[in-house]
Each structure stands twice: as structure tokens, then as C-alpha cells.
């Protein structure tokens, strides 16, 4: 039993497993982005919700935890057993790290003064070999790697919390319309909010170049018939209400958009007819009925248009009525005879014209609740702190040995760093110069 336990533990604590898992994840991610979603292999198209992905993330988490636990005692030992120095530290030291002088007291004073001037805490130890001065800095640096690994685990946890307890959906609201039941994504069925949200107005503004400038929905949150909160949602500026976040995600022209049509007959012009998509109205001639198939704000880059279907005497014709048909016909001579679909006078003897379209927008809101967000944020902060700790701090230890030799006093300077040995070397050189200076004065 214990043997199999050891095998399992050594499997999970191996860095080879980490690298293999990371390589596998990289290859899977690559495959998933290349294979187009609708045609792909089912599990690959939805890789991030597939059992394989969960298993890999699980393995990675276990691997991370066990590797960290295995390493921790080593780090703690590094942290504790700093004093006295490793026995080989002062063997074969280069000459530029050594100073010779004559009086031991003066030497100790100089070393002490130089070290305390530069660093705060300096320890002193009398040994058989001589007097050892010691200072340590950046011990925290040893723990950076644990902070980074912990942050990865927190981020994975955040993703799990989000997928279990979170929900997200898209809601389309026409101006004036309100909703209290939202249809959840991924066929999870309807969800009853304990308030309702109403879109009072949707505004879209453009720059003079034609590029969009602002999309804004003015929302009211209603509870028991009373408006309890009002606010605007813009892209990059979501609104939070009762733990739900509302995002501006899309917009469009509502099917409620009204078109104002007229037609001319022998007897003159008709009155204005207000219609929306799906409306049916009677025409004077031959008991004809017109059905409004579509109302478009801008079709084929030719401006507003309405598609009509007219039934009379078992005849059935369809055509578009463009608001700017005059201009369109001028640019394309012969259009009306060649493309009957563009001819507003196709149903003789009536000639239709479109006066205007009274646009009504709908706004597309994304509604999200994700209790994982604070965890993800914590993970991100930890990741940042951990990385900065690893790469911008170093655990540096410096020892100075003052020993009485038969004819002279020998001062040796050396140190150990877990990173950036060049920066430590510079520090040691400066320290040696300072000590020489102190002795000289």
C-alpha cells in the first residue's frame, strides 16, 4: 500500500508531468482555435467544457499542490540554516574579496560600521575560526514561486465557482419594454428575476466619419411597480443591480419600427398609412390586400425600404418600396424595367412611395452573475505579486569573516544569492571597498 502511495506521489510530484501537461494543454488549445466551431469534433469544439479539459486541469492542480508541498521544507531549511555559513564559502576566495590589516579590534569596528551603514540588521558570531558578521535580505523572495502557484490554483477555483454558481444570458429589450424572466444560455431554461428591468431609451451616436461613437441604454429597475433604480449602460461601463451585471452587447432595429407609406391613384394621393412588419392593409383596386413583409432601415446600402406583397385576383406580386427610389433610378438608368422587384409601381395602377421610417431600436443586453470574479481578481493580484517577488527581489546573504592570523588580520567578504549573482557581486565589491576605506580612516 505504502509503496503504491509512493509511486503515486512521485508521479504527481514530478516536474516532467508538469511539462507534459503544459505541452498537452498548448497543443489542445492550438487545435481548438483552428478547427471551426460548427464543423469541428464535438468535444474539441467545446474543449473548455469537456471532461478531458477538466481532467487535465485537475491533474495540473494536484501536480502543482504536491510539487509545492514537496519543495516547501527545502525552502524553509534555506530560510533557517543561514547562520553560520557553508563551510566552503571562504575557501579559495579571490584576492579581490580579501583585505589584510593588522589590528583585529579596528577591523571588527570597520566591518561593523560598513555593514550597519548599508543594512539594518547585522548579526555577529564568534567561532573557532574567527568573528563572523552576517546579514540577510530578501528572504521573502524564496516564497514568490509559492505565491505564483497559489494564484494559479485560485484562478482555477474561480473558474469552477463561476461555472457552477454563475449564469449569463442575452436579453433583447425594445424601447419601453421590460423583462423579469430571462432565458439562460446553454438551454438551462428560464430564470425568474425578483425585479424587472425596462429599457427606457436606446441611443446610438456616430462620429462625422460614420464610425460609431456611443451605444447607450437607459435602464430602469422596477420592483413591485416602483422604479427603484435608474441608470445608463454603455460599452465599457456596465451597471450592477442586485448582483447582476448588465452589459451593452448589441443593438438593432426593432420589428415594431413603423413605416409611413402613401400611394397615388388616378384620383390623387392616398392618406398616410402607418404600418409595421406583418401588417395587412386594403387597397382600393380589385379588392387587393397588401402585406408588409419587411421594414428595413438600410437595405443593400440603398437606404430605407419596405417590402410589400400584394394579392389580388389570385395574382401575387412582391416588390420593394425604397424611400430614395428617384435617386437610385437616376444612378442606375433602366433599373425599374430590368429589376421589377425595385419598381414601386409594379401593382398597376398604384405607385407606392415611402415617406419615412420611424425607427425603434432594441438593445441587446448581456446579463451576468459570476461569483467567481472576486476570486479571479485575487488570483490575478497574487500572480502579479508573486512574479514581481520572483523576478525583482532576491534572497541575498552576506558574510564577513574576520580572523587573526599569526602576522596579520584577514578580512574575507562573500555571499550567496538565489538569483542575480552579478548584482550580488557588485554589492560585495562595494562592501569590500567600504571596509578598506573605514580601516584607512
Amino acid at each position: 500500500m505504502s509503496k503504491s502511495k509512493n509511486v503515486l506521489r512521485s508521479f504527481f510530484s514530478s516536474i516532467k508531468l508538469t511539462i507534459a501537461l503544459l505541452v498537452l494543454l498548448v497543443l489542445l488549445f492550438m487545435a481548438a482555435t483552428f478547427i471551426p466551431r460548427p464543423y469541428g469534433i464535438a468535444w474539441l469544439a467545446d474543449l473548455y467544457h469537456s471532461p478531458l479539459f477538466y481532467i487535465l486541469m485537475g491533474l495540473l492542480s494536484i501536480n502543482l499542490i504536491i510539487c509545492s508541498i514537496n519543495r516547501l521544507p527545502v525552502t524553509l531549511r534555506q530560510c533557517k540554516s543561514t547562520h553560520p555559513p557553508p563551510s566552503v564559502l571562504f575557501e579559495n576566495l579571490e584576492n579581490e574579496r580579501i583585505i589584510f590589516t593588522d589590528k583585529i579590534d579596528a577591523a571588527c569596528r570597520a566591518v561593523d560600521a560598513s555593514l550597519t551603514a548599508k543594512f539594518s540588521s547585522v548579526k555577529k558570531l564568534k567561532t573557532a575560526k574567527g568573528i563572523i558578521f552576517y546579514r540577510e535580505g530578501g528572504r521573502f523572495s524564496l516564497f514568490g514561486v509559492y505565491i505564483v502557484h497559489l494564484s494559479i490554483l485560485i484562478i482555477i477555483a474561480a473558474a469552477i465557482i463561476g461555472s457552477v454558481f454563475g449564469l449569463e444570458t442575452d436579453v433583447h429589450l425594445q424601447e419601453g419594454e421590460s423583462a423579469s424572466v430571462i432565458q439562460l444560455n446553454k438551454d438551462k431554461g428560464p430564470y425568474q428575476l425578483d425585479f424587472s428591468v425596462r429599457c427606457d431609451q436606446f441611443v446610438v451616436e456616430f462620429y462625422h466619419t460614420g464610425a460609431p461613437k456611443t451605444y447607450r441604454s437607459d435602464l430602469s429597475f422596477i420592483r413591485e411597480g416602483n422604479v427603484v433604480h435608474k441608470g445608463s449602460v454603455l460599452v465599457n461601463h456596465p451597471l450592477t443591480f442586485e448582483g447582476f451585471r448588465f452589459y451593452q452587447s448589441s443593438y438593432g432595429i426593432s420589428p415594431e419600427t413603423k413605416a409611413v407609406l402613401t400611394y397615388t391613384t388616378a384620383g390623387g394621393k392616398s392618406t398616410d398609412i402607418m404600418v409595421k412588419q406583418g401588417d395587412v392593409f386594403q387597397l382600393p383596386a380589385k379588392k387587393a390586400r397588401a402585406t408588409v413583409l419587411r421594414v428595413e432601415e438600410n437595405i443593400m446600402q440603398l437606404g430605407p425600404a419596405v417590402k410589400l406583397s400584394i394579392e389580388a385576383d389570385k395574382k401575387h406580386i412582391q416588390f420593394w418600396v425604397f424611400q430614395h427610389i428617384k435617386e437610385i433610378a437616376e444612378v442606375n438608368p433602366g433599373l425599374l424595367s430590368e429589376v421589377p422587384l425595385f419598381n414601386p409601381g409594379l401593382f398597376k395602377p398604384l405607385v407606392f412611395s415611402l415617406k419615412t421610417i420611424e425607427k425603434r431600436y432594441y438593445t441587446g443586453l448581456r446579463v451576468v452573475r459570476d461569483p467567481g470574479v472576486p476570486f479571479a481578481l485575487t488570483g490575478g493580484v497574487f500572480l502579479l505579486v508573486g512574479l514581481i517577488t520572483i523576478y525583482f527581489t532576491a534572497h541575498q546573504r552576506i558574510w564577513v569573516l574576520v580572523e587573526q592570523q599569526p602576522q596579520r588580520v584577514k578580512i574575507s567578504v562573500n555571499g550567496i544569492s538565489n538569483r542575480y549573482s552579478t548584482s550580488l557581486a557588485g554589492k560585495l565589491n562595494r562592501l569590500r571597498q567600504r571596509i578598506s576605506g573605514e580601516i584607512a580612516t
Partner: protein
Amino acid sequence: MTDTVILNYVTFIYFTSFVLYLFRMIFLKEFWARLASFLAWTGFFAHTFALILRWKASYNLGFGHAPLSNLYESLVFFAWSIIILYLAVEWRIKNKSLGAFVVPITFFTMAYASIAPGINNRIEPLIPALQSNWLTTHVVTCFMGYAAFTVAFGCGLLYLWKSGKEAKYSPMFAEKLPPLPALDLLIYQSAALGFVFLAIGIITGSVWAHYAWGAYWSWDPKETWSLITWLVYAIMIHARYVRSWHGKRLAVLAVIGFACMLFTYLGVNLLSSLHSYL
């Protein structure tokens, strides 16, 4: 429009600098390298000046945003990040041979920015999706990461080139190039710097996505590829630190990582992405 004119000259300066760095490799005379380096510094100062001019111009037009809002501006900024980081590294290692491998990338980026089809170098107002305070932080940190990866890639190439040539040529030649262990360390240090910057870039991007799209992570191809790039360098760092991978293996990983980074930056646009504006 003055900024684009200056940037055209800057492209030419970088090209000349690259040619002079090549001369140094061929003739092994430090004179060429000093001239090349001088030109690279000149290009960098002109480049910086042009970026400031463009920034100011956008305020004069009433838009007022950092020049980081479309493909043209991002390429110009990418080239700027590479050159500033390269010059810093050159100054630190006191060896100018790396220039022949990094400066051409700066030149190609600038050239691509001015001649690529369908590229738009006009200053335009920000569309709603980009109207965020996170734009500058996110883009700057990402491109600093990209630039560090580019320097690591240059070191990797130099490493592979030198270790391939070493057997054939005289020691005189090898002496003019940085020693292999120093290059190895430089690959690692640049990659680690890029790793930290890309991490910050991904985190700031997530925060922005949280405000803009309603999800801090949505497996958009650009997000996925930035994670792929980050993981490749994570593999590199772990392989070196724990498995003691050095030299050629590290250099090859730096090349692979650079390829992933390029795909994250430009290749992803071939796939449908929420990042379509870059």
C-alpha cells in the same frame, strides 16, 4: 501627417542600421557597429518624437487618445518597444553583435506598417469598445512583453548561429560574439521579462474584458493564443530552472515562443475574434 512622414524616414534609418550591423558581422570591425548603433539611437529618438507628435495630433483633432488604436499604430508601437529594449540590452551587455538579429525585425515591422495592404494610417476616433482607461495599460504591457520575446528570439538565433559556426571558424571570430553562456542567460532573462509583462498584459486584458464583454475570460482566439504563448514561456522557465535545460534547447524554445507570439499578434486575425480591431 508629419508623424507618418517622420516614421517613413525612421524605417529607412532602421534599415541602414541593420545593414551596418551586418557589415560588422562580416568585416568584424567595431567601427561599423558603432555607426549602426548611432543610427539605431537616432531612429529611436525620431520614432519617439513621431509618436508624441501623433498623440498630440489626435488631441488637436479632438479625439485625444494614445496612438495605440489600430493595426498601424500598434505596429509602430511594437517596433518602438523592440528598439528601446534592444538598445537597453546592447548598452548593458556592451556587445553589438545582437543588432544584426533584432534590428531587422524592427525594420520589417515598420516596413509592414507602411506597405501592408488595407492598412490605415489615419488618426481616427475611438469606437465604443476601445473607449476605456485600460486600453493604454493593456496594450503597452502586452507590447513590452512582445518586445522582450523578440529580443529573446534574437539571442536564440545568435546562439544557434554561433554554436553552429564555432567549430568551423577561428577563435578570433568567436571572440567578437558574446560568449555562449552569456547568450544563454540573456535568452532566459529576456524571456522571463516578457513572461512577467505578458502576465500583466493578460491580467489587465481580463479586467478590461470584465468591464467590456461581461466575462474576464471567454476563450476568444486572441485570449487563447496569448495563454498558449505564456504557457510556452512557462515551460521554458520551468525546464531551465528545474530540469536545467540550457543552450540549444533554450534557444529553440525561444524561437517557438516567438512564433506563438507572432501568431497571437497577427495570425489570430485570420480566425474570427472579438479582438478584430486589434
